[in-house]
């Protein structure tokens, strides 16, 4: 494990205690599904043999039994899941820095998601969890998992069809920025649409609001499109060194990150494929690599403050 936390005896005891719980849940789930599968098998067999009535009785009986097993296993899993986040992830966070805490059922609110302007589209379905808060040096920060989607409704022959599309899935990191600013500066990945929009607003017509900020760093300009309400302020925030640091941070992420600077805070969105900080059900808790990925993410978030040098507070902001 990245932090050497595997040698922490208190955590090992917690994990050992939870391992029995995990085995119970895993076996409960397996049994539940087996009963349901058995019921379906009997039904098919009875149809093949020409005695459908016993088949129906079989599926109803086994289905009810399997369903009860499953529902009890899932309700136990939700307790187990929360305990894992609180006791195991919580301990790993404290091990890294005493100020770090996790609140599994909190997150970054939908209002804040809209307010940070990282994305153009407003979500129709929004969920967030696993809020981690802390302080690294002089800088307060927090991050949480966020899943935001929008829907499209299309007319078809049989009525309407609703489809859900992803706006963002991953972690949003928020930190108190080390400089004073009043406006809005947004740095988004340069995909085709963004590049076209930027060219249009720069050369033909600006739609008002935030204009494109053309920055000198060519790598930065190739990777991102920057919009700002104040050209000078955007450059005050995105100094040549800051742009290099953001590029470095971006290289460490599989997908291009987005950033925004608003209301004295900086927001960074890291698109991720999987859900982090989840307790394993079919994998042993005693496996020493079980938390590796979670710890890597936590450490990465914690190090952003250092990476972006947010603890240097010489610009008149406490």
């Amino acid at each position, binding site marked *: 494990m990245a932090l050497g936390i595997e040698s922490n005896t208190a955590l090992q005891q917690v994990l050992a205690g939870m391992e029995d719980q995990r085995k119970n849940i895993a076996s409960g789930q397996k049994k539940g599904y087996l009963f349901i599968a058995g019921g379906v098998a009997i039904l098919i067999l009875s149809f093949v043999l020409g005695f459908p009535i016993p088949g129906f009785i079989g599926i109803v009986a086994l289905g009810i039994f399997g369903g009860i097993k499953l529902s009890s296993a899932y309700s136990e899993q939700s307790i187990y899941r929360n305990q894992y986040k609180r006791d195991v992830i919580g301990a790993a966070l404290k091990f890294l820095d005493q100020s770090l805490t996790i609140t599994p059922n909190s997150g970054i609110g939908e209002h804040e998601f809209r307010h940070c302007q990282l994305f153009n589209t407003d979500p129709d379905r929004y969920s967030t969890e696993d809020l981690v808060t802390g302080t690294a040096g002089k800088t307060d920060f927090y991050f949480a998992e966020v899943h935001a989607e929008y829907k499209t409704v299309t007319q078809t022959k049989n009525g309407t069809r609703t489809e859900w599309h992803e706006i963002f899935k991953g972690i949003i990191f928020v930190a108190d920025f080390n400089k004073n600013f009043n406006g809005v500066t947004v740095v988004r990945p340069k995909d085709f649409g963004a590049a076209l929009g930027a060219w249009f607003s720069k050369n033909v017509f600006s739609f008002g609001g935030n204009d494109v900020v053309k920055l*000198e760093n060519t790598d930065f300009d190739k990777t991102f499109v920057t919009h700002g309400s104040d050209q000078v302020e955007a*450059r005050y925030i995105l100094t*040549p*060194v*800051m742009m290099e640091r953001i590029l470095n941070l971006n290289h460490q992420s599989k997908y291009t990150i987005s950033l925004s600077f608003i209301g004295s805070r900086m927001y960074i969105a890291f698109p991720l494929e999987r859900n982090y900080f989840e307790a394993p059900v079919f994998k042993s808790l005693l496996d020493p690599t079980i938390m590796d990925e979670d710890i890597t993410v936590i450490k990465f978030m914690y190090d952003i403050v250092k990476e972006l040098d947010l603890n240097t507070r*010489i610009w*008149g*902001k406490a």
Partner: protein
Amino acid sequence: MIIVIIILVVIFLIGIFFYNLLIAKKNQVINAFSAIDVMLKKRFDLIPNLVEVVKQYTNYEQGTLTKIVELRSRATSGNISNAEKAELDAQLSSSVKGLMVNIENYPDLKSNTNFINLQSTWTESEEQIAAARRTYNSAVTDYNNSIMMFPGSLFAGMLNFQPIAVLETAAEERKNISAKELFNN
């Protein structure tokens, strides 16, 4: 005949479009320069306070203080060109940097709240000026590109738009201000 008129009207409209575009870009340059001017003024305004605070604690920096006051009064006298103002600002900036380094020898001054505030406001203004200069250069590059590239170059030639030189960035401005280097905290 109608076709000729249509072509002439189209050319005329395109001409207006490019003329307005070039004017807009030129105005952006002027606007960006005034932003530098505002930032410089803000910085010059800090000098009297800085000098006052430093004076109370030190007897040995009189030479530097006198030089700083003199540079400031020359820079704010009003009848100097933009280039001279930029030059005076560069001198002023390096004198103040020198002063900040020497202040290491005065622990009382170093821990004075007023001085600490002035120090951070000064670094803030340094970086704001750097940002304003970069904004100016970006506006100039944008304008120069428009008058040198086809088809803007056609209209620029006819309407006598001249290229503008970008501001040379001082070597210190290219790197970020480091607290350690400046104040050796």
